[in-house]
């Protein structure tokens, strides 16, 4: 079973990061974890029609996102990158609005947030990251792009085309694969020929790095190294963070149909928050007060986000017509009038 191949080498917290940084990483992970819990609860209450949990992938997401230059870099998420949004300071009410199904892309500004719209096409946004990165280099800007994608997405043609383009152009982009062992019901063994997405890098002449995705510091370091290389003109890198989707694929899914709950339990033992908390305690970078305090603050923030997203007004039907074009067509204006006359009332 491929779930076993986790790189267990690195003990979380080892490294040269300032205690302050380590605590921030923990805080982001905790925020993501708690907000994820709120979102699951909101789905159960019928506020969200469905939700995709990132539980278990906090270290992979926070570690990679924290390594970004928030002024200059740009992230291209899939639909499961809540912890990236948390770390990058994206408006979380706007982010979760997508899961409340208010607007597919969410209600945050992707350009201002340097975090593209949520994207449900598996593999589809990966070439965008390469385009963005090429554009950055063409203008001589310092930014790098990071493309998030899953182990399942790695099978899509777009991911290959994107990696090849990036290699040929030497674009400053990091291909960040969260290998959470499952693509819906399909395990790595039936998805990833050869078993390693990092190993694909070599075929494009770029470094391929496998990292323990439960170890936020290891992920941070690996991503920072890849970004530094890219920024210095060294081109793209593939990072494969070995992690685990602890929950079912989505709230509509029943993982019991295809995988052994024992596997979930084993991975829960390597819960990234647990590992990080232990490391912080071990190294005396955080005491009980810190954990109480951070939990309180994070909880308060989560409650605010939950409450705000719950009461967001439903979108106005006019928005359907407003955002199709920059310069709307006469025909669309006519249809807008039909909507007003025959639907809105």
């Amino acid at each position, binding site marked *: 079973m491929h779930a076993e191949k986790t790189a267990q080498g690195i003990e979380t917290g080892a490294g040269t990061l300032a205690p302050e940084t380590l605590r921030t990483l923990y805080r982001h992970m905790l925020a993501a974890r708690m907000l994820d819990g709120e979102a699951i609860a909101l789905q159960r209450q019928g506020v969200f*029609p469905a939700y995709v949990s990132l539980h278990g992938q906090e270290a992979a997401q926070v570690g990679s996102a924290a390594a970004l230059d928030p002024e200059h870099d740009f992230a291209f998420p899939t639909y499961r990158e809540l912890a990236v949004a948390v770390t990058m300071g994206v408006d979380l009410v706007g982010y979760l609005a997508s899961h409340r199904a208010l607007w597919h892309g969410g209600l945050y500004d992707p350009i201002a947030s340097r975090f593209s719209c949520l994207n*449900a096409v598996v*593999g589809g946004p990966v070439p965008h990251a390469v385009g963005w990165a090429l554009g950055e280099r063409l203008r001589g800007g310092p930014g790098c792009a990071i493309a998030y994608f899953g182990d*399942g997405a790695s099978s*899509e043609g777009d991911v290959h085309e994107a990696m090849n383009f990036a290699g040929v152009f030497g674009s400053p982009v990091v291909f960040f694969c969260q290998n959470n062992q499952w693509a819906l019901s399909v395990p790595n063994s039936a998805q990833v020929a050869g078993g390693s997405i990092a190993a694909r890098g070599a075929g494009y002449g770029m470094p391929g790095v496998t990292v323990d995705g439960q170890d936020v510091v290891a992920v941070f370091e690996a991503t920072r190294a890849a970004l530094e290389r890219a920024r210095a003109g060294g081109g793209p890198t593939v990072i494969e963070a070995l992690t685990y989707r602890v929950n079912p694929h989505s709230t509509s899914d029943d993982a019991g149909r295809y995988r052994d709950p024992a596997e979930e339990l084993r991975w829960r033992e390597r819960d990234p928050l647990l590992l990080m908390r232990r490391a912080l305690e071990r190294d005396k970078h955080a005491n009980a007060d810190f954990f109480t305090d951070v939990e309180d603050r994070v909880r308060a923030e989560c409650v605010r986000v939950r409450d705000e997203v719950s009461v967001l007004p439903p979108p106005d039907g006019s928005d359907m*017509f407003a955002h199709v074009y920059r310069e709307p067509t006469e025909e669309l204006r006519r249809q807008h009038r039909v909507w007003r006359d025959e639907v809105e009332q």
Partner: protein
Amino acid sequence: MTELATTPASADATASEHSMQQAINAALRTLLAEDPATLVFGEDVGRLGGVFRVTDGLQAEFGDQRVFDTPLAESGIVGLAVGLAMNGWRPVPELQFDGFAYPAVDQIVNQVARMHYRSRGAAPMPITLRLPSFGGIQAPEHHGESLEALFAHVPGLKVCSPSDPADAYRLLLQSVRADDPVVYLEPKARYWNRSPGALTEPDLPIGASRVVREGRHATLVAWGAMVHHCLRVAEFAAEDGVELEVLDLRWLKPIDTAGLTASVRRTGRVVVVHEAPLTAGLGGEIAALVQEHAFRDLRAPVQRVTGFDVPYPAGPLEPQYLPNADRVLLAVQRTLEF
């Protein structure tokens, strides 16, 4: 109608009430049982039984050589089907959702639809592409699309969409047994609605439509989930004494021009209802056919009540996007008052 020759596998398929999900599942069972060349594959269709459970239990029953999961790559899935067909198999691939058929368009248009032609008949493509389609389930982006106009435009393909469980069963048997490639569009919104009626053998030729309600004042033309919707509209209208005929088109390629024309001859008025955006949707083709073949019978312009020319919206806006009853009734009124 011929009675279904039940196999042990599809025994409960003859029960008196089914959902469309069950009916399609039963059809796949029948097909896998009757022809060892039939293969079912796609993303999550094996162990999971599909995200809509349409392939539920098939892998357990027919083994993981006949029913199997593929990696997550739609073009690869359809390309695989082409090669399998060239080696004598009868592939029934599933693409998980309408909006994820786009990555496979090249293989569908340039390969599946043309291999028979390109090879002058030497390489038939008996592929049935199952595609959970259309909206109405308040799903995420790319899970509510209507691709019939795209596929209907492609020479070499046939396209159908069932509107109820019994017809879903018949149409799938017919599609898979046909030696031409068929795109089979499953109306997701109707997967769970149960309706009575035995699951029986196909009784109409490929391309035939059905009048599912007779009427004399105007014809509503629809397919997939919109048929049920139109039947409800027709009930409302009947309360006001307006008798609407509802034509379930069933086949979107070939289109039943004769059936369409016959209905227009009876009613003189047509409203086409579809979920896809208006412009260049299949409603245009139907309007064109009607005015061409029944010009003098047509007493008012063919009306089209469709999705708007906007990307499919998120949940709360869905009812405002899809043709609602009011819009259909207003169109009926417009055509009656013309």
